[in-house]
């Protein structure tokens, strides 16, 4: 570089601005969303299409799960069709540690908005989020150890199986040797609200989210902060020694092993870290909804999350964020809005939300036809497009 000499701090600042400028702008816009959503909704024609803050919470939480799933599917190339299991594990951790489920004991620690005499375990939701993440990580490792020896389609089928086992377990877990662990099909409700307690309210931190007048806004800020942390961790991991190992395994397992990468351990870490974020998201969502219900953990959630990853661009964090927000929006209210608009303006009685999975499927098919790398291509896939690709493979990629 023959650029004129600058102070190192100046140069670093410039590089930082180039790298993160757009990101910071988007994050700022995101955090300010509740302040200008009213104005957006007042706009003619398009106003009704903007999501409410409540929908934004759901979109953000699902996007967080998609970013977690992207570690498994996008980085390490392990097709996981049972990610919903981690969402369930996280949600039930919150349900166990912040509700009246275990009425035999009364244990309170940092919980807000709960009478001190109320039975059950009531931990602070912040602590619960962390515990849920760690617990789900352990679940991920336990599921991963036996299954990750498989490759490709076989792995997908087994993860699909585990994705079904865990919801079935919670559905039938109301009598585990006479002990009511999951309250069966009724689910566990209510779950405590997040909050910082009255002690910190002098710092401007909210005492109790759910009892606040702007509960949705508080949940949204928290969800966005969690998503931001997930994205940062995800980017950091991608560019680390471990991230390179994941991508190497995705590209060629045999060669990766020959370069000194322990396959099982590295794959299990991908699974475990993906699980961690799924668990935290699940616990937070359970607290937002104030309940964990087995009906929320069907297979279609796994597919829905996978659609977000594919639509956004496998392996591309920002792509997955966009894909997640987009599909999350359609799911939370977009399709319903479009349907009601359509029927009120044309008189056709059509409810797109009834056909939602058909519509997601169509989106994926169209993407595969016109933009197979996703909305935002992973950097290396973009390189490939820019540099051009040799038409014929130079070597046979079959296993020795």
């Amino acid at each position, binding site marked *: 570089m023959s650029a004129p000499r600058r102070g190192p701090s100046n140069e670093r600042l410039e590089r930082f601005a180039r790298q993160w400028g757009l990101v910071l702008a988007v994050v700022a816009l995101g955090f300010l969303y509740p302040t200008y959503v009213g104005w957006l909704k007042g706009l003619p024609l398009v106003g009704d299409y903007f999501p409410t803050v409540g929908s934004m919470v759901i979109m953000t939480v699902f996007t967080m799960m998609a970013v977690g799933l992207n570690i498994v599917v996008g980085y390490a190339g392990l097709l996981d069709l049972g990610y919903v299991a981690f969402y369930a594990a996280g949600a039930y951790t919150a349900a166990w540690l912040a509700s009246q489920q275990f009425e035999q004991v009364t244990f309170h620690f940092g919980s807000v908005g709960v009478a001190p005499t109320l039975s059950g375990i009531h931990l602070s939701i912040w602590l619960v989020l962390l515990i849920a993440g760690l617990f789900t990580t352990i679940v991920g490792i336990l599921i991963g150890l036996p299954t990750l020896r498989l490759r490709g389609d076989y792995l997908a089928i087994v993860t699909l199986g585990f994705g079904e086992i865990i919801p079935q377990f919670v559905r039938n877990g109301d009598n585990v040797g006479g002990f009511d662990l999951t309250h069966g099909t009724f689910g566990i409700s209510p779950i405590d609200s997040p909050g910082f307690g009255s002690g910190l309210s002098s710092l401007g931190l909210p005492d109790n989210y759910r009892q606040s007048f702007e509960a949705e806004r508080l949940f949204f800020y928290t969800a966005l902060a969690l998503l931001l942390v997930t994205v940062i961790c995800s980017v950091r991991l991608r560019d*680390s020694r471990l991230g390179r190992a994941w991508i190497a395994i995705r590209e060629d397992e045999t060669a990766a092993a020959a370069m000194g990468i322990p396959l099982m351990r590295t794959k299990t870490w991908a699974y475990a870290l993906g699980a961690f974020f799924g668990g935290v998201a699940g616990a937070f969502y359970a607290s937002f909804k104030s309940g964990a219900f087995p009906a929320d953990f069907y297979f279609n959630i796994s597919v829905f999350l996978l659609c977000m990853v594919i639509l956004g661009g496998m392996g591309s964090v920002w792509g997955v964020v966009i894909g997640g927000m987009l599909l999350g929006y359609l799911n939370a209210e977009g399709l319903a809005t479009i349907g009601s608009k359509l029927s009120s303006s044309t008189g056709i009685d059509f409810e797109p939300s009834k056909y939602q999975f058909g519509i997601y499927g169509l989106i994926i098919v169209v993407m595969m036809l016109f933009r197979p790398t996703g909305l935002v291509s992973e950097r290396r896939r973009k390189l490939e497009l820019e540099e051009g690709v040799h038409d014929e493979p*130079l070597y046979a990629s079959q296993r020795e």
Partner: protein
Amino acid sequence: MSDVLTATRVRKEFGGLLAVNDVDFTIPTGKIVSLIGPNGAGKTTFFNLLTGVYTPTAGRIDFDGHQVAGEPPHVITKLGVGRTFQNIRLFPQMTAKENVLVGMHARMNAGILGSIFGIPRVRREEREADKRARELLAYAGLRGRDHHLARNLPYGDQRRLEVARALATKPKLLLLDEPTAGMNPQETVTFMEFVSTLRDEQSLTILMIEHDMRVVMGISERVTVLDYGEKIAEGTPQEIQKDERVIEAYLGRGAGT
């Protein structure tokens, strides 16, 4: 210790097929050794036994004081065996530099939390790895190719990148599986000069499978011949060229007379 690797009665069966039949084999430290033999003689299978891709049915393999038969590939790599593949197996969607960085995996220590928080030790390690990767690329004759995707490199450069990636694992023993396959005579000569320098400058021991007899006879200090999974001859290139059984294996019975 004069032999970096000793294989004792190594045997590999695939079902009923005997691919490697009780082969004894030693690689003296610091030498360039060639493994030759007709197609299907079990050379690549033998390579895969040495590197842990396959587990031997019987026998032991001692590398640098460790019994490595049956160990997984990453353990053997960490002990100091680097390799290239017969059909180039780079990480096609990664850049040349990233390929080399992957090779350094076993020599780096960054953990998950350290990477997420970007602690100084991890950042320093990344900087050093980056520097070393660029040096290795330059050393392998790939200067200026750092950011090219592996799959877009010309064939000869892909071969060189495989060597650079193997060197990144800091091997004591480098295994090259048909390194000059598909190269034209000029490329072959340059590449073999590179292998020679490698051995001298990096104080490596090199074992290679090779089909080009001019290459084998020109560069190796010792040649082992496999046929139908059995070792039929071992010696200096001059001895091998005169060996009856070798001539028979390559040209058929009666050709030697």
